């Protein structure tokens, strides 16, 4: 009896030790923590760093938004945004540390210095611009309403049908749904945790329509031609939106460097190849 | 030689005064029985003696040392008092022999083998045979549990044993085995103070019977003297008890 309790205690201590060990060996910031001095040092990129010193940029992303960011089977991030960051880094000889971060707290993480940039299909808007500053836009898209092919109603009829319309919760499509409801349209919003599950809801009939954006829909349909044949785009909503690379307001030097490199990249013939590579061309 | 001495012990709970100045001496080798109706304060008085209940007023000496003194080492003095409770409160997670050993190893600091030897001897003294040693409390009868509890207290080599209504939680058929053990121990010179309702047992075992009522000692004497008690209150109580079946007052 006493022995077994002792084993129980021992088990807990071993568990604790194992937890600590794993925590140490797996720490995602391993590479960064060797330079602990510059971690959390806000404004470290406000002006040009010392000549000859290695610039390390911690790149924050939520690998949840193909084709801009997604994850490979071996765990490395890929996508248009990842390619852009890698090309910029290559141009200047920067070192990039990839750091996945949840979308819900990613802006705070940038503000507080856990990450130095966000390039993860982040839409430039005024609310965000009060806290973080964006580079020049590198991709534009428009919001679209999608229905199943056999649905022949018009955009107005669908938005007033009282039926479910799926969106990704917290996305710009979600904002659009709220704006439409406020304007007096009559439908039910079905908020789901990703574009993929919102698409799924439309396909299996839980929702009659889907609000999404061209940046997601185009490449997705290209990759899934069987789905493309089942869907119809009813119409667009409002003016186009743009993606930008987010930085801290005070990191002026970094932003200037990114803008310079982005401009050069987007004016080169390679830019179109890059877009095509990710199905965005 | 007086081994236990209580002087003017008072205790109140909220607005009920339970003890109103109880004094008592216990000599080495002596057996005293405290009797009295329910609510007389017998159990509270007994628990005051080893400070399980803290008296409001009054002084208590064990073996010449004052346990009520602020400087007293209470845990050490408690080892000199064996206490057997009314409730059958053995340690549930230990075997019969484990219950007896734990005080020896953890309080007295004996080695396991010495404690084991001592525990076996003590269990034999209370007629707990070898086949019961490895049983857990939940596997023992009430009478067996209470005898193990006696052994648990006895093994600590106390200078006095206190019994707080040791048979009142038992089925009537199981009382006798416990009373027999108490009687044997008392006859072998273990100083004992017993609270009980069993009049017949009290007459048999006691050198002196103390009668309590409403927080006070109202009389006492040897069994002989009590039979011819002059004090009206004591005589009335005794007559009442004698009228009850088997001398058991509930």
């Amino acid at each position, binding site marked *: *009896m006493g022995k*077994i*309790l002792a084993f*129980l205690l021992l088990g*807990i*201590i071993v*568990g*604790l030790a*194992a*937890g600590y060990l794993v*925590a140490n060996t*797996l*720490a*995602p*910031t391993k590479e960064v923590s060797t330079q602990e001095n510059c971690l*959390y040092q806000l404004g470290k990129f406000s002006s040009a760093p010392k000549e000859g010193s290695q610039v390390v940029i911690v790149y924050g992303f939520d*690998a*949840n*938004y193909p084709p801009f960011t*997604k*994850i490979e*089977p071996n*765990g490395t991030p890929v996508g248009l945004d990842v390619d852009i960051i890698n090309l910029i880094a290559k141009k200047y000889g920067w070192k990039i540390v990839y750091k*996945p*971060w*949840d979308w*819900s*707290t990613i802006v*705070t*993480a940038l503000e*507080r210095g*856990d990450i130095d940039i966000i390039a993860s299909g982040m839409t430039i808007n005024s609310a965000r611009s009060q806290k973080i500053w964006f580079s020049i836009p590198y991709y534009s898209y428009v919001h679209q309403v999608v229905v199943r092919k056999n649905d022949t109603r018009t955009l107005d009829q669908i938005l007033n049908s009282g039926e479910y319309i799926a969106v990704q919760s917290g996305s710009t499509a979600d904002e659009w749904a709220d704006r439409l409801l406020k304007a007096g349209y009559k439908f039910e919003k079905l908020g789901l945790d*990703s*574009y*993929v*599950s919102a698409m799924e809801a439309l396909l299996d009939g839980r929702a009659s329509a889907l609000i999404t954006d061209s940046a997601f829909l185009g490449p*997705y349909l290209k*990759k*899934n031609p069987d789905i493309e044949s089942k869907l119809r785009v009813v119409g667009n909503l409002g003016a186009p939106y743009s993606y930008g690379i987010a930085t801290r307001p005070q990191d002026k030097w970094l932003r200037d460097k990114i803008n310079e490199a982005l401009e050069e990249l987007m004016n080169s013939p390679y830019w179109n190849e890059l877009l095509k590579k990710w199905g965005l061309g | 030689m007086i081994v236990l001495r209580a002087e003017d012990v008072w205790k109140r709970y909220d607005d009920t005064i339970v003890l109103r100045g109880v004094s008592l001496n216990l000599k080495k080798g002596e057996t005293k029985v405290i009797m009295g109706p329910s609510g007389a304060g017998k159990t509270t008085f007994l628990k005051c003696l*080893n400070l*399980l209940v803290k008296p409001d007023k009054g002084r208590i000496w064990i073996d010449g040392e004052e346990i009520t003194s602020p400087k007293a080492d209470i*845990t050490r003095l*408690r080892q000199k*008092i064996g*206490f057997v*409770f009314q*409730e059958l*409160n*053995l*340690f*549930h*997670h230990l075997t019969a022999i484990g219950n007896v050993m734990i*005080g020896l190893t*953890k*309080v007295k600091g004996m080695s396991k083998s010495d404690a084991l030897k001592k525990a076996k001897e003590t269990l034999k003294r209370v007629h707990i045979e070898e086949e019961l040693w490895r049983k857990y*409390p*939940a*596997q023992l009868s009430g009478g067996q549990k209470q005898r193990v509890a006696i052994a*648990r*207290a006895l093994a600590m080599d106390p200078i006095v044993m206190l019994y707080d209504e040791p048979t009142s939680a038992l089925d009537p058929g199981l009382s006798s085995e416990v009373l027999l053990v108490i009687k044997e121990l008392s006859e072998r010179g273990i100083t004992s103070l017993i609270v009980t309702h069993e009049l017949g047992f009290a007459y048999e075992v006691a050198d002196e019977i103390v009668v309590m009522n409403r927080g006070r000692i109202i009389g006492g004497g040897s069994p002989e003297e009590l039979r011819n008690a002059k004090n009206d209150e004591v005589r009335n109580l005794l007559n009442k008890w004698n009228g009850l079946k088997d001398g058991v007052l509930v």
Partner: protein
Amino acid sequence: MTYIYSLFQYIPFIAEGVLWTASLVLGGLGIGFIIGLPLAIAQSFGGKKLGKVLNAYVWFFRGTPLLVLLSLFYWAIFPSFGFKLDPLKTSILVLGMRSGAYQSQIFKDSIKSVDYGQILAAKAIGMTQRKLILYIVLPQALRISIPAWSNEYAVILKDSAICFALGVMEILTRVRYVSTATGLALIPYLFAGILFFVLTFSGTGIMDFIHKRTRIPGMVEGLR
């Protein structure tokens, strides 16, 4: 079929998340135990003033959502004390402190269920408070705690998924990534469900085993 194949490729990536989840859960449970048990003992045997202070701790950690706690400790509290802990260590500590609050209630209840008569009996043979807690109360209380404790394991296992808010790559985070990368909504989550089921089942299974092994002969559960 090609979808399924593409999912297979991701299995090692998801399985690696088990290590992260395990470190969150085991670390959190361990720290929770180290905090919770002394807390319960202090609440049960300590004075009233101490009890009030400790109650405040328990209420704070039980009443605040985990996501808020994580952000608060990661960005405000730890840095203000001069600690710059990485997200995984912060998550483990926060899970541990929170679980400590819950575990203290588990242990407090089971300490309470050890009847007072045994405590009196332990005092009567001359045990100090420390000894009677160690040798009489805890061996019984810990055993009584096991079922509630394995429940806490299952709870913390599921809570650990919230730590992704700080960028911790536990199982569900990875599954969410795989779901978007493969375009499959159901199957990756089903796989995660199986992983969680196996973890829950094996963890509570071990606790059940210990509970049975420490059974006190003759004692009826719940009755004593």
